[in-house]
């Protein structure tokens, strides 16, 4: 048992380190290090810097390095991808706007698009020249994704094109995206999972309207996207008509394959605060009630870190990591929310102040407080994640689904009366 690289891994790490040392945007390091927990780096044009860094990486063969070379990648192994991530460190946070495109849209295009399309779309996606988003969730289909209602119908002009009408919601980055993958309903007369079809489209197509959603924390990372008679050529269909659910599973599976450093919980920041802030009983870190909570969160943070190391070890041996990695977001989201609450409690009356210039720890915990509710919902709610663990890891029976075999257009909805 050790944390050492194999000789091949060590050589690869050295190559990565040398290149990053010579090429990374070092002038951004401080701003990037101070960002996090929902507050972006201040004083820089993040998208421009992100695109510049991604382009530089792509030119040297360091973008999407697990993708095949012909699609803009490097053909690297999973463990090489992990090593790259470790070495890229804080600069990897620049690429936040590319995560969905690289992690979910790219693999879906790679699995289902034509060869010609793959060569056209994947390299600029890898290089950050074109940004992609994922148009899945809807007002009536969040956790119950297959309940979505955005319609795709064959155009009446006989062109073979599809006409899209409906609404998506919670689309990260729709406002800066060039393309999106879009799941639609093409047949409402069959059970809900069977009538879906996937497409990709140009986000500047006529009839696409993007409205940012103002969030709890005042920012707008997500959008509503409205489709009014938007035309998509049949050549941009991904997978079979009616096969959209299977395609979406490919997309979502790739989301869960992203493995690495373990998710942040805010624990090191809280410990640091507790070593500096006073309670009625002296330093917070000396207060037994605080200590007990700190210990619980410390072992969660550590447990996530070493669970990640176990997954990396499996990759290093050429194996597929076990299901233990599915706990990451479930643990990190709730822990971060609890940590934020204690950090504000320790600040007492001043905890209300949400101003980086005045607040303790640059208002980091106030940002955490206001961002953490989203972590527990996005990309699978805590409840959906527990279902996944129970069903796929522990082998418990799936929920009884009353709508499973019912034609979609006969399923009761929130708006309808019984």
């Amino acid at each position, binding site marked *: *048992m050790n*944390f050492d690289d194999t000789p091949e891994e060590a050589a690869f790490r050295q190559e990565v380190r040398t290149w990053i040392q010579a090429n990374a945007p070092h002038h951004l390091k401080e701003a990037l290090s101070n960002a996090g927990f929902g507050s972006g780096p201040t004083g820089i044009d993040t998208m421009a810097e992100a695109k510049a860094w991604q382009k530089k990486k792509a030119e040297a063969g360091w973008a999407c390095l697990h993708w095949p070379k012909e699609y803009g990648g490097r053909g690297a192994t999973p463990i090489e991808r992990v090593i790259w991530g470790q070495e890229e460190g804080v600069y990897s946070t620049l690429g936040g706007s590319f995560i969905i495109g690289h992690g979910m849209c790219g693999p879906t295009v790679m699995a289902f698009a034509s060869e010609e399309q793959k060569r056209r779309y994947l390299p600029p996606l890898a290089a950050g020249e074109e940004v992609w988003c994922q148009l899945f969730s809807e007002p009536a289909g969040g956790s119950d994704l297959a309940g979505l209602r955005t319609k795709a119908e064959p155009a009446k002009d006989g062109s073979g094109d599809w006409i899209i009408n409906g609404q998506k919601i919670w689309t990260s980055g729709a406002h800066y995206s060039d393309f999106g993958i879009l799941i639609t309903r093409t047949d409402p007369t069959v059970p809900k999972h069977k009538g879906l079809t996937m497409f990709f489209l140009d986000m500047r197509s006529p009839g696409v309207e993007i409205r940012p959603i103002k969030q709890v924390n005042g920012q707008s990372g997500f959008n509503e996207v409205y489709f009014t008679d938007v035309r998509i050529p049949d050549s941009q269909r991904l997978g079979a008509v009616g096969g959209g659910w299977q395609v979406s599973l490919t997309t979502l599976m790739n989301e869960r394959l992203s493995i690495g450093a373990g998710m942040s919980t805010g624990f090191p920041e809280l410990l640091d605060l507790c070593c500096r802030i006073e309670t009625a009983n002296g330093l917070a870190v000396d207060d037994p009630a605080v200590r007990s909570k*700190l210990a619980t969160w410390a072992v969660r943070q550590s*447990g996530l870190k070493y669970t990640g190391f*176990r997954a990396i070890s499996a990759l290093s*041996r050429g194996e597929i990591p076990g299901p233990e990695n599915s706990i990451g977001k479930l*643990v990190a989201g709730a822990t971060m929310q609890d940590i934020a609450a204690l950090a504000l409690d320790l600040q007492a009356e001043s905890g209300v102040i949400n101003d980086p210039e005045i607040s303790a720890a640059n208002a980091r915990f106030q940002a955490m407080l206001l961002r953490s509710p989203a972590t527990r919902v996005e990309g699978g709610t805590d409840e959906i994640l527990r279902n996944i663990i129970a069903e796929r*890891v*522990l082998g418990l029976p799936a929920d009884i689904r009353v709508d499973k075999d019912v034609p979609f257009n006969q399923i009761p909805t929130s708006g309808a009366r019984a």
Partner: protein
Amino acid sequence: MNFEFSDEQKQLRNEARRFLEAKCPPAAVRQVLEGSEPFDRALWKGLGEMGFLGVVIPEEHGGLGLGYLELCVVAEELGRVIAPVPFGSSVFLATEFILAAGSEAQKAKWLPKLAAGEAIGTFAFAEGAGAVTPRTIKLQASGGALTGVKIPVADGDVADFAIVAARTAPGNDERGVSLFIVELNGPGVTREVVETIDPTRSHARISFAGAAAEPLGAAGEGWSIINGVFDRAAVLTAFEQVGGADRALEMARDYALERVAFGRPIGSFQAVKHMLADMYVSATLARSNCYYGAWALSTGSSELGEAAATARVSATQAFQHCSKNNIQTHGGMGFTWAFDCHLYYRRSNLLALNLGSLSVWEDRLIERLRAKNVA
């Protein structure tokens, strides 16, 4: 990165599991729970024959001469079957004290017997309710004889000898604490069995009235030796706890699949599924933290203090969490004497207290993290 047990270690795990499934089924644990024997003597003998009592003891002293990773593997398997034997006392504590501080003569005398299971050792530390600190060590040592009372002493009724923490200098501070080896069958030692929350692991009150004692390690070094041994024992005990947590989770899962209510397996209800998912989460975090502990222990890392406390806190939480919700999953049947759930519930709570309770280890963890944060 190779943060995983090796193929040889996994083979050892399989060997230990096969042995324990055959020799230590729930009926064997129940035999100790309900019978008059304080522990399973046949199992103890078998563990000695398999070499499991001397995994890290050097070959020249009759052990297997393997490393701590191998001992971690065995500890986890013993925890899975909640083996009713004095393993923790004799192997994690007495053996470790002698390895850490024993003279050559003491090693030569005790290690072969410990490895073979011919002698059972234990550690006599607490002297009553409350966290043990240098101030609570009142038992007096003078002129090679001990006077005072230790309670509770795990396996104190069956042990052949005990490592005893005693006061050798007046005052309250740790420099006045020293360690001694006392043969418990000698004069001046009185032992009474005390009833505990887990009768499958016996405990005793030991009264010393001028009992003959031989120093272990230098005078005044007792407290620091204890800290070092406790870190090692914490990692090993954490593996035992994780083994128990995993088994309790499996029992709950199996029952949730089998038990039908309202026309469906109870494992199809989200309330039950989510409880089981949370058990899986705590057991998984604890396992990963145990691996961290095992790495630190086996490599002699300077991070051992932090890693041991991390593993101990995490594994204590996980075993308690899984054992109590195993009962909850079983409903009323989980509260019957006939079902095995209570055996795990009892053991989880016993192991949470042996070696210092959760709050003690939480304290140790935060002290160590804080030192690192300041550095």
